[in-house]
């Protein structure tokens, strides 16, 4: 057991370092120059541009930049924004709570809506509720987040005036973004819970339970549902990634603060240290969540516990 956990942690570290190096290479290869977002190049002299590039350290060879980056990282130095010299780590720390709130609430929406609709649609197969659940599932996974976001915004903010269209203070600003992002996750979960529920309902033990004289209610909610929910726990790990990625779009659409917004801006301006910092941080969060999910199987599922 201990060996398995250490192995998981080590491979997680590898994932983090690997993703961070990969992003460094991608950002280096991408066209664009931070200098272009700092000054008006049409009225600047080539010397000014060269000086600026030198000050930023982006005129050095690629490997030197990469080595410098990891060297600093090992010393806990995430670097600073090339645009306004702001240190990266405090910047992330300041904006992460807003992203965490959004991601957590979205995950809650996903799980609650997803499980509820998934179970109901499996139990009432081919009834209207099943149709609704399947439509939600389909829309959730196929509608782009920015489109759903703008649609909700036009209806609930502009037309009805129930919720603000932008901002990151107060629960009311969280409703529309969490709903938008949550619907994506709900789409996945509905489909998954429905399928696994249908599978479990067809299992022999359900027949046994019914034969035993248990009420249909008890069969479904006490026995079938519990079996069907195991995959949903796996989904939480996958969802963590979905939610973090989704915040990039959602935070921009709803003008929220957060690390998704920071990385979107930083990519546009080719502000490499900030992009790196956010990627590193996000992959850390993702890896930790998935590690916890993996470890929780041992707690949840006795088969895993025994085999380990």
């Amino acid at each position, binding site marked *: 057991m201990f060996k398995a956990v250490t192995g998981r942690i080590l491979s997680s570290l590898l994932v983090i370092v690997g993703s961070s190096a990969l992003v460094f290479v991608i950002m280096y290869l*991408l*066209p*664009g*120059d931070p*200098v*272009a*977002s*700092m*000054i*008006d*190049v*049409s*009225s*600047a*002299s*080539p010397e*000014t541009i060269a000086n*600026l590039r030198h*000050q930023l350290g982006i005129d050095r060879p690629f490997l030197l930049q990469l080595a410098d980056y990891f060297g600093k990282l090992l010393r806990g130095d995430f670097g600073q924004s090339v645009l*306004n*010299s702001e240190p990266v780590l405090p910047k992330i720390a*300041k*904006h992460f709570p807003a992203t*965490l*709130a959004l991601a*957590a*609430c979205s995950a*809650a929406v996903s*799980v*609650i809506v997803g499980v509820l609709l998934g179970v109901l649609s499996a139990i009432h197969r081919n009834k209207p509720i099943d149709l609704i659940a399947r439509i939600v599932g389909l829309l959730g996974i196929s509608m782009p987040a920015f489109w759903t976001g*703008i649609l909700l915004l*036009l209806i609930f*903010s*502009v037309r009805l*005036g129930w919720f*603000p*269209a*932008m*901002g990151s*203070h*107060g*629960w*009311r600003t*969280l409703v529309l973004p*969490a709903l938008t992002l949550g619907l994506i996750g709900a789409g996945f979960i509905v489909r998954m819970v429905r399928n696994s529920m249908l599978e479990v309902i067809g299992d022999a033990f359900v027949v046994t339970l019914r034969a035993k004289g248990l009420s249909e209610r008890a069969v479904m909610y006490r*026995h079938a549902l*519990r079996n069907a*929910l195991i995959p*949903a*726990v796996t989904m939480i790990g996958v969802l963590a990634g979905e939610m973090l990625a989704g915040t990039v779009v959602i935070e*921009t*659409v*709803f*003008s929220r*603060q957060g690390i998704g917004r920071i990385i979107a*801006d930083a990519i546009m301006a080719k502000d490499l240290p900030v992009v790196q910092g956010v990627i590193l941080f996000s992959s850390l969060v993702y890896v930790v969540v998935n590690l916890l999910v993996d470890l*929780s199987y041992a707690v*949840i*599922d*006795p088969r895993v516990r025994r085999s380990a």
Partner: protein
Amino acid sequence: MYKWTSALLALSFALTLALAACGNNNNNGDGQAASGDASPSAASPSASQADGSPSAAAQGGELTYALATSPDTLDPQRSGLAVAVRVIRTIYDNLVVKLPDNTIKPWLATEWTESEDGLSYTFKLRQDVKFQDGTPFNAEAVKYNYDRILDPATKAANASALLKPYKSAEVIDEYTVKLNLETPSRAFLGNLSQALLGIVSPTAAKKYGDQFGKNPVGTGPFKFVKWEENAEITVERNPDYAWAPEIVDNKGAPYLDRVTFKIAPEEATRIGSVQSGQVLAAETVPPQNIVSLKSNPDFQVLQANTIGLPYTLFINQEHAPWGETKARQALQYGIDNGAIVKTLYLGTYEQAWSALTPGVLGYDASLENAVQPDVDKANALLDEIGWKKGADGIREKDGKKLTLRYVDGSPNREKRNDIAAIIQQQLKKIGIDTEVVITKDILTEVYTNSNYDLYGNSQVNGDPNALSAFYHTAPKGALGNLSKVSDPEIDQWLEQGAVEKDDAKRAELYKKVQQRIKDEAIILPIYVFPYTVAASKSVQGLKFDLLGYPLFNDVSLAK
């Protein structure tokens, strides 16, 4: 039995965690709402205050104003973004102000004289001005500011370009300062009115150093309060303010208690927030919204054309066949710019006709409508210089196809990528195969490698000398001359224009330049960019300066 209980436990634990996070946020949110800070009720305190005094120019209230992007810094001398200037204008003042008729009037300077040789200006300064941190405004402060811009450590790339050819400053007495120039310049005095040359508090600039941009202090009508990154910037009324320039009516402290700039990059959100009342005003309104908002009695759309160089497509003369005048003229006649501007901007943008926009000294209005699209003429011109249509409809000469590489930046700012797509279609009709290249790396593609036949650019600038950077024969590899034009006469006119003291003669020189640019088809002028603001009807007195930046001195909230 046991196992499933633990499974459920784990799931409910996860759920509780998730909900707890939301719960925490709820609490924060309630606290925020109670203090009336950032919730949609932000607009209501101002509304109720205005109820108390229903007269015009009501005192007090908060204006919420949504910006399309986030400012980079609030240090005027380090900034490079127009969006930052909207905020910078509220915090800082300049020595002089330029009025829409291009006359220059006093601001922090009361009067000035220019030396006979044009190599120095002596300014008398106002004696009643204090920075918002209490630092007195005087000749030392002015000298400190301009020297700070020249100091490479300040990284004032854009401001130092504007300040050229400034050399040094001499403090004559406490309220008299003499500025020395390297060479005479007619643009210099006017440039001193530009926001990027705003006067910062020397005390604060020294104290905060690199971080001054997050702790800005000036002499302006509003004082900086706070900047929440990617969310909002708040400035509040400077009660001591009493030196507003002639361009606004209210010479004293502003009527508003505060202005809160909200940063909302997504245009649907920005405009939606005005419609839902979450903010009172929002900038950069998409054309389709301008049309619908104008017909709604609860809202108003304010519009100010920016001045300087309009959005212009530069034809690279170093690439064949575009060095030939007739080839360029074929583009001039083959492209129906009127149709492009009408289709994309629904009548909300004005079509550009010259290398300058209306409003700049010397703008040549006689060029308006001077060139009309004429496909036959374009075809004839290309035939004349030996480019004949092949079987596929694309012209050829000596076995080479007539192609045009049209480079444009990403993202699709002001629908410029769509312009490229339309031009591609229009040029097909005259047998030109246009390759549209959309890239983020304009610096390398255009400025370093010159790998383009057509590239568009614009510049906000209050002085016609702006033409020099774009049309004067480039001195040792300067980047601005995108057409790669080298015309001794244009050079001469531009050089004379840069120093000519008589404005009427100066205007004539720049008219000659514009005329030549049109005759030689050096560029294709496309549109004049209007700065647009959608606002609730209750917002009154919003004005714009010469360059199209908003001024909040006269703003009050009615009803």
